[in-house]
Structure formats: structure tokens, C-alpha cells
């Protein structure tokens, strides 16, 4: 697959040479986002997610390492015309919604009549047409976020970089954005999505990268992350639950977990006990469990790093 966004061993340290407060935001950080996928970027506060996004957008420079976006080094201005970006806590100029979107579209080189059409379409898509003549300064945070999304989408970007796109939206707004992301992927766009909302990440992303303390601690497809290869769940009937350390469900079936290496012997024990194996599945965990496990066991940062 062609990498659309690539972080190559990037380190970012805040604080100048004379600063007493130095913070290592990213530490030898590497990550690749492939064409046509939605990559979910998960991490606790302070993990370095926003720093990584700001580096990709060229808002800051790495202390070490390099990165590429659509084949060009981070910060290349002409390449940004092909990107749609939504910042966390979106801040826009206070004027009419349609004019705000038009302004950002024009900054990307769009001109009438293409610009007028793009503005109308994107306002339609995000259901903002009714408020197109209202000043965004009077909008709620959720509405402001929609306008932020509109300015990110107005140039029909190849790559969308979204930092918490649904953080201020109500459930209906979240569903709408989720559908929009899926439509964008279906039309061949690549999406780099940072979010705290695990359910959102789990439902739309092809791959998930979990970042903690400036490093990617786990990356894989959603299926790979959620299914534990080392643990299986066996459901059987006709056996004593106590002898298998299992529990009995409403249908009277006994359910117990074993390590994958012991799966075969456990099944044989069921048979020798006169029982019958109903099903064997890899244990599927929630993203929340994985997230908590990975982000809580990371090493603390080195003092003075």
C-alpha cells in the first residue's frame, strides 16, 4: 500500500536550550497511514497525539527525524492544498458561516464558480445551509465544529487529518460525522483520525494506533487488536462448571477461558468428561480494555527528558 502519511523516527522536545521545563512530546515516533484507510489515533491526554498532527501539518518542526505527507516533506505548502485539517478546539473567524467556509476555500486556491459550488455542497453535506447566513461567533461549540469540518472538506481533500472531530457534537452529529467519514473512505480518501471516543474509533477505523508517552505502543487492524490470539473462550455442554473454572449461562452452557496453548487439552478434557464442545472462539476484548492496559503500563517519562 502507498503511504500517504509517514512519521519516520520523529522526536519532538518542547523547551529551548535554556528552558528549565523540557518536555518530550514524541520519542522516536514512527507511524504510517496508508492510502484509502481510516487510521484511528488513540492515546491519553499528553500522549503526543496533537503534537504528531501539528508536526504533520507543518505547524512545528521535529527535534529529530522526518516525515512525509503525500510524498512531500511535512510543511510543504502546495501539498496542504490536498489536505483537509480540523484542529482540536476549532477556532474560526467570526463571520457568516458561508463566508467563513468560502474564505478557507479561497485560501486553498479555489475560485468561483467552483468555490461557490464547493461551499454550497459542503454546507449541504453538513446540514449547515439553514444557518449559512448566521455569524459563527454565535454558534454553539457543536455547530462551530461542523463549520470547522466544512472548511476542512471544502477543497475535496485527498487526506483528512481530524483532531477530535466529534468531541463537541451531540449523538446525532456524531452519527452524521461517522457516516461522512465512511463515505469519504468509500470515495478513496484517506483519514487520520484522532479521538478519545473509543466507540467511534472502533466502529469506523480500519487500523488503530495507540500512542502513549510519545510512542506507538500498539498498531494493527481493529480485528487484530480486539481479538486476543493467546486466549480462547470455550463453550461446552454436559460438564461441571466448577471443574473447568467456568460459568453457566442462561441456556445451561458452560463457558470458560483457556490460554491458546492449552486449548487442545481443554477440549479433550471436555470430551473425556462426557461433554460436548459447542464453540471455540478467540477472546474478543473491548477497545477500552486494550487502551487501559497499554496506556497504564507504559513507562513513566525519564526525568529531564
Amino acid at each position, binding site marked *: 500500500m502507498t503511504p500517504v502519511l509517514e512519521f519516520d523516527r520523529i522526536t519532538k522536545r518542547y523547551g529551548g536550550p535554556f528552558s528549565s521545563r523540557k518536555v518530550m512530546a514524541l520519542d522516536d515516533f514512527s507511524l504510517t497511514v496508508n492510502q484509502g484507510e481510516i487510521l484511528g489515533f488513540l492515546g491519553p491526554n499528553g500522549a503526543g497525539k*496533537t*503534537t504528531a498532527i501539528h508536526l504533520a501539518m*507543518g505547524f512545528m518542526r521535529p527535534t529529530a527525524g522526518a516525515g512525509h505527507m503525500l510524498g512531500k516533506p511535512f510543511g510543504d*505548502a*502546495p*501539498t*496542504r492544498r490536498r489536505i483537509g485539517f480540523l484542529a482540536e478546539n476549532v*477556532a474560526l473567524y467570526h463571520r457568516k458561516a458561508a463566508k467563513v467556509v468560502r474564505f478557507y476555500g479561497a485560501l486553498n486556491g479555489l475560485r468561483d464558480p467552483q468555490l461557490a459550488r464547493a461551499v454550497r455542497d459542503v454546507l449541504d453535506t453538513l446540514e449547515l445551509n439553514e444557518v449559512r447566513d448566521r455569524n459563527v461567533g454565535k454558534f454553539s461549540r457543536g455547530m462551530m465544529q461542523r463549520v*470547522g469540518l466544512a472548511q476542512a472538506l471544502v477543497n475535496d481533500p485527498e487526506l483528512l487529518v481530524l483532531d477530535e472531530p466529534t468531541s463537541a457534537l451531540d449523538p446525532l452529529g456524531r452519527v452524521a460525522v461517522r457516516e461522512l467519514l465512511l463515505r469519504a473512505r468509500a470515495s478513496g480518501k484517506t483519514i487520520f483520525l484522532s479521538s478519545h471516543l473509543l466507540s467511534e474509533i472502533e466502529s469506523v477505523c480500519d487500523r488503530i494506533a495507540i500512542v502513549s508517552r510519545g510512542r506507538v505502543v500498539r498498531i494493527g487492524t481493529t480485528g487484530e487488536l480486539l481479538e486476543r490470539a493467546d486466549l480462547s473462550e470455550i463453550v461446552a455442554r454436559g460438564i461441571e462448571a466448577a471443574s473447568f473454572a467456568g460459568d453457566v449461562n442462561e441456556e445451561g452452557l458452560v463457558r470458560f477461558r483457556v490460554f491458546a496453548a492449552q486449548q487442545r487439552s481443554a477440549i479433550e478434557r471436555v470430551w473425556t468428561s462426557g461433554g460436548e464442545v459447542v464453540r471455540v472462539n478467540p477472546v474478543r476484548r473491548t477497545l477500552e480494555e486494550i487502551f487501559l492496559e497499554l496506556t497504564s503500563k507504559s513507562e513513566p517519562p525519564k526525568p529531564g527528558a
Partner: protein
Amino acid sequence: MFLIAVNFVREQRWPLITLLLYVVVFGGGIALTGGQSEDDTLFMLRSTSIYGLAFTGLLAASAINNECRTRRILAVLSKGLERGKYLGGLLLGAMIASAVYCATIFAVGALATHKVGILLPFALMLMVLFLLAATVAMAFSTVFHPLLASASAAFLLGAEGIAARALGGVWLDILPAWTLVDRAVNFGAPGWHLPWAACAWAILQAAIFWALATAIFSRRDIAVAIE
């Protein structure tokens, strides 16, 4: 660049309108009363030119900081816009605001004195002086807080003025800050004329500071993660 400039003027419209109202009300009052002496009119033109100098310097010094503080700069620079052009847009915006201010001074002055012949070079000279102040303040603001940037710009231009006065001769043109400010505060004095050479050096100096500001701003982090 022009989009950024127009947007900047729009964002700064209230302080600009307030300053313009001051010029219009103060100057218009003098023009309408008619019985005032020419000294009053000259005093108005001189003082408003110095206010304009301070206004332009502060406007330029705070431009980058305001955009970063409000985080609006992120959406703007996420588009296909080079940092140099963005900075150019902000400077052009400050100069458009200055041009509106100078045009108002010119119009009010013309109404009060009917001396269009001398007011036009005065307005042009003010534009050059404002351009110099704006670029120096903006260059300092790429690394300093706006207040420190304004103070640094004032200090630099003041030191330049002192050096020019001490050296005299051709240095009064090469280091033009003193000459331009002197002509602004002595506008209307006998023998007043547009200091062409000083204006040319001021434009050159502004270009140097502009290049310096662009070089620094292109390398600077504009966003620190809020995490």
C-alpha cells in the same frame, strides 16, 4: 496574500474606526469652526500622524500573537499558504489600515487647510514611516511578545535616530527614522519638503526587516500542543 490582508483589516476594524473617528471629529471640528489658527490645524495633523505611527506599530506587533493565541492561525496555515505569504498578508493588512488612516488625515487636512500640494507628500511620507514601524515591529514579534516587540521596535528606531543625529550628513537619510519622525512632527514648518532619500532608505530597511521576519517566522513553531 490579499485575502489575509483584507481579513486582517476586517478583524482590526474597530480600533481603526475609533482612530479614524478621532481624526474626523478633531480635524472636522477645526475645519468647520474656520476661525481657528493654522497652528491648530498643523498641531492636529502632527499629533494624529504620531498616533498613527503608534497604532501601526502596535497593530503589526500584535498580529501574529493574536492569531496564535486565538488558534485561528491553525486553520489558516493548514491551507496551501506559505508562511512568508501569510506574514506578507498581515503586513499588507496593516498597511491598508495605515493607508486608510493617511487618506483620512489627507482628506481632513485638505478640508481644513486647502493645501493639497503639501498634504499629499506628507501623507506619502507617513505611509513610508508607518511601513518602517510595522515591519520592524512585526520582525520583533516573530520572537517576542507584542508588548516587548513594540518596545524593541521603538528602542531600535530610537537608537537609529540618535545615531543618525550624532553622525549627521548622509546618515540622516541612511538611518531614516529620525528624519521621517522629525518631518512628521514639524509638518508645515517653513521649507518643509518630502525627504525622498530618507523615504527610499526607509523602504529598503523595511524590506530587510521583512525578509528577516519571514526567515524567522518560517522556522518557528506556531502551535504548542494544548495537551
